[in-house]
């Protein structure tokens, strides 16, 4: 089981593009990647359109990440979340903690001063 992970930058966001299933077998890859490649005190967006399934372990990793970014006062955004996963997140209570965007092009710019 593999997970493809890539980091890029866009309008002041760190964007991590994830491709593959996030479950107990792959979640450690994601955790390790985030620990190594991402600055936890800068806005972070996870591009998830290539993620067909996220297990309980995956959702918990997302929530832990949300708590970490929140504690640093920075935004965490989910991009391209598939409807099946969004639905699971809604009925289990995870969804409410996240800001969702259709794609990276919808992300508000973090380079501009807030008004």
């Amino acid at each position, binding site marked *: 089981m593999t997970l493809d992970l890539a980091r890029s930058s866009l309008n002041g966001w760190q964007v991590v593009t994830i491709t593959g299933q996030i*479950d*107990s*077998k792959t979640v450690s890859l994601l955790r390790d990647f985030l620990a190594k490649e991402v600055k936890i005190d800068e806005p972070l967006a996870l591009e998830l359109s290539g993620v067909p399934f996220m*297990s*309980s*372990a995956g959702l*918990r990793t997302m*929530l832990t990440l949300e708590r970490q970014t929140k504690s640093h006062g920075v935004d965490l955004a989910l991009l391209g979340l598939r409807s099946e996963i969004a*639905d*699971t997140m809604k*009925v*289990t*209570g*995870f969804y409410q903690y996240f800001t969702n965007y259709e794609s990276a092009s919808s992300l508000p710019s973090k380079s501009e001063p807030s008004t």
Partner: protein
Amino acid sequence: MIERIDGLPTNIINGYKVRPGKPLPFGVSHVPNGLNFSAYTSAGTGCTLVLFSRGVLEPFAEIEFPKSYRIGDVFCMIVFDLDYEDLEYGYRIDGPFQPEAGHRFNKECILMDPYTKLVSGRDVWGEEPDWNAQIYHYRSRVSFDDFDWEDDSPLEFPPEDLLIYEAHVRGFTKSASAKVAHPGTYAGLAEKIPYLKRLGINAIELMPIFEFDEFENSRIHPETGEKLYNYWGYSTLGFFAPKAAYAATGRHGMQVDELKQLVKNLHSNGIEVILDVVFNHTAEGNENGPTLSFKGLDNKTYYMLTPEGYYFNFSGTGNTLNCNNPIVRSLVLDCLRYWASEYHIDGFRFDLASILGRDPLGYPLSNPPLLESLAFDPILSACKLIAEAWDAGGLYQVGSFPAFGRWSEWNGKYRDCLRKFLKGDAAQVGELAQRVQGSPDLYQSSGRTPATSINFITCHDGFTLADLTSFNEKHNSSNGEDNRDGGNDNHSWNCGAEGWTDNAGILALRQKQMMNAFALLLTSRGVPMFVMGDEFGRSQQGNNNAYCLDSSLSWVDWLQLKANHQLFDFVTSLIAFRKSHPCLRVNKFDTTITTIGLPSSSFHGTSAWSPDWSQESRQLAWMFCLDGIGTGNSDVDLVYVIANMAPSTSWFSCPELPNGLRWCVAFNTGDPAGPVLKHEATVDKHGLLVGERSVIIMTA
């Protein structure tokens, strides 16, 4: 950070890193780098942990507990580096197969952990397993108990303020007419919370949600040939595990989170959650039933056995859990503590609770240790404890259930009396006076209060309210038992025709009788409860025991809400009325005179202060009065209820009121213009006419 030494293995067995475990807690628990497995057996001689990958037929490993991994009667072992999200596990227990001595060990059987918090194998309702290939059907799994409750906690409403709505998770929203995204699930129920708020109830009592097997029923529908189910679920497999197939996310094993989210949502909308729990028996049946868990772990501990080793059957289902054995007592206590603390459950209703007061040989105990333990448990101290105070072995304890100052009771006597009075039976008025006060004849002498009495006219078991007014006899042929099942003492009345009719007069009378029932229920002291759909006239076509029917017959038909909006409006108005009149919710038996010179409760007939207690009387009025409420224009709350179940109109005089107060009619089920009066009508000081089979509710 210093690494804990117990996070490191001491042995390798079959290639798996292990070390001696901890006996408590029972079941499986997370420890550094591994999982701690703990299983109790007093007479088993050996234990093997069997490990599966999720959904795979054959195990990937079997690890026998070394002798040194046993402490007392508990096998315990830590296994490292397991993928616990993908893991399913069970046990094989070695020991004697000597039924006459109570032992039924069989090492061939893989047993479900009785403490498992998550069960797989029946993840999607009605999805049949491969009966021939499957060697282990109900699989223990490891749960995540890390739900973020934020600031949620149990609501702890005073018991006298409760309005309980009994519901079946699947049946509540399974019909397409429910128009929810996830029919028949916890999530579907959550989508209906706005409806429950509109109705006004503040507690929902969920029929069994502990894991059970819907395929347990072997009967078939006699007309369609379709397989019948165990739809109600009164046959527990896993006491700590929520029914996976009730979760929209059950196929992903996320039922724990989905149910917790439902509870959280209900709480944030002011609705308590009460679980209907079944501790009187298990799904393993008698000596002819399967060995799934308890039988193979320690049969003699978990079940009440005859001296010959057969199963006592006080539950009517084959076996009886040995609840006052200290090990079983601990299991029950651990279970309820878990649900109260991990799921924030507000209360429990105990199915056939009288069994919980029997000793291992079945004799009723005067001071049952289990009931006492539950009553005084520090974690359960704010939970409602509600007994179905009888069992199938003939023990009937309504009014005498060992309460320890904590237990309330489903009041079966309230149900029977109200039904008989409503249909116009003679000789009911005297008992009715007791019932509407909260049954002081049953509870006052032992120091209990009106809220001890869970008042109900209908529940899941028996006719719905619509059927109570539409059928004289049960019609259970669909259950595949030639109409033998289900009770015959329904005290029902079809109002002139059995079942469906287009006779307008009969239909109008049925509608009025349903309103009469709600009027009496919601103006009685004690705690009112009714079953889902009664508020708009749900019918089961005369089936009074729909335990096996997973079909439109037992699902709520939400189109009926529109069809009978009059009844729904009546019930919501009555619930609002009950909430605004504290004199209906007084939680003490009090006949003292209030500051305005009227007693707290009093009874009347066609003449005020002169109730007719005769055998032939079918009329009773009562007045509840509460002073010192300190709200509104008056310091006094007054409600007067006139119930005329005679087949003729009568003139009723009303008690005179002091201080310029006047009676006003709020509800009149006999008013052709409608039962809910838009503007409360002032009553002539001499009294008023009350229609036949009608209830009038007044306030001052």
